[in-house]
């Protein structure tokens, strides 16, 4: 009986403490103590993760790198061709500002079974003190990885484009004139949806971001690679056609990413 009372009092004390902290955390009062803890742990997490990435990425690295480089060059070529055409026509005006990139270490990539299942989010070691804001794009080379979802003083959470809550407007096709909506499906999968039946989607076509940036160039920049089409689902009875998209980057092997910080 005595033991039960003791447990009850301890339970009540910790319950009240947790509830107070939970209530006050919404006001941001604990952001500095929390940043102290996260800055103390982030180097350990980073080493932990980099060690496992080093073990995993031993095989097929060169081939994949080469493949990625070729696809990137292809997209650059397409981009240059379009830019050239636009400049010749004197229609495109150059942006007065160019976005700057902030490198960040990946310190967490939680997934169901690490190494087997794909993560839905990444934790990176840059936060408010590095001027990271919610909604900024996170890239690797010229591939979109995701966007910043939550930020505290020292670390941020990145929602990957494969996350089931992720959705963005994309373009595809040789002329980049086929518009669609890319939805994350979880487990590292993506679907291109809302594409008109009259459009001609082809396997192997690259999918790019359409772009959604504000005046400070923050948000998702245009022409970033999302992935390539691996299968098309076109039914005459449906309103739109769909396509499965495969990313060109193995997110589980990333140790550094870049935040598009605008200005």
């Amino acid at each position, binding site marked *: 009986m005595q033991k039960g009372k003791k447990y009850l009092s301890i*339970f009540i004390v*910790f319950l009240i403490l947790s509830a107070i902290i939970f209530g006050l955390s919404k006001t941001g009062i604990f952001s500095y103590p929390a940043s102290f803890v996260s800055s103390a742990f982030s180097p350990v997490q980073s080493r932990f993760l980099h060690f496992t990435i080093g073990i995993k990425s031993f095989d097929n690295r060169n081939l994949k790198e080469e493949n990625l480089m070729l696809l990137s060059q292809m997209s650059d070529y397409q981009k240059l061709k379009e830019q050239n055409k636009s400049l010749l026509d004197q229609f495109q005006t150059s942006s007065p500002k160019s976005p700057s990139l902030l490198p960040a270490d990946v*310190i967490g990539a939680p997934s169901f079974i*690490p190494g087997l299942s794909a993560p839905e989010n990444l934790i990176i070691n840059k936060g408010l003190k590095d001027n990271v804001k919610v909604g900024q794009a996170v890239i690797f080379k010229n591939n979109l990885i995701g966007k910043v979802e939550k930020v505290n003083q020292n670390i941020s959470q990145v929602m990957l484009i494969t996350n089931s809550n992720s959705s963005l407007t994309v373009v595809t096709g040789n002329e980049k004139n086929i518009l669609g909506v890319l939805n994350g499906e979880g487990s590292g999968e993506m679907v291109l949806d809302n594409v008109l039946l009259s459009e001609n989607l082809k396997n192997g076509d690259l999918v790019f971001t359409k772009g959604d940036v504000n005046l400070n160039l923050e948000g998702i920049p245009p022409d970033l690679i999302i992935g390539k089409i691996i299968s098309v689902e076109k039914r005459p009875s449906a309103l739109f056609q769909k396509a499965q998209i495969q990313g060109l980057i193995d997110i589980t092997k990333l140790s550094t990413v870049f935040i598009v910080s605008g200005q």
Partner: protein
Amino acid sequence: MRIWILSFILLIMVLIEATFTTVPIVLLLLISFLVLEKKSWVFSAAFFSGLALDILSLRFLGSTSLYFIIVLFIINLYERRFETANIYFVLFASFIGSFFYLTVFDIRFAFPQALFSAFLGSLIFFLISILSKKEKLGYKYRIGK
């Protein structure tokens, strides 16, 4: 000494959960600690490990602590009437605790992860109970000497 070793294991588990996995291994460890140790320090361990997880996973501070403490208290209430230090109870408690944890914190595939957690929880319980038995035997041996 023993409490420091268990706290160190808990800290490692916090780091592993925040870095690698969505499976609630810290909760599984706390359930096994409570069922085997039956000590009040498990509540303080739940409180602090929950806070650490909240910080490292960018959740609202105190949310994981609240969840851990409530789950442990429910297990504690159950323990007053029934025997909880058996693998069937741990299997059940790990499944229910993990399922609601994954649902509350909006982690996908809650059911398969909870199933996996139930088996992992039983394994953790099994390993800790072996270690506890060895330690108790060693203690008896030293007293006997």
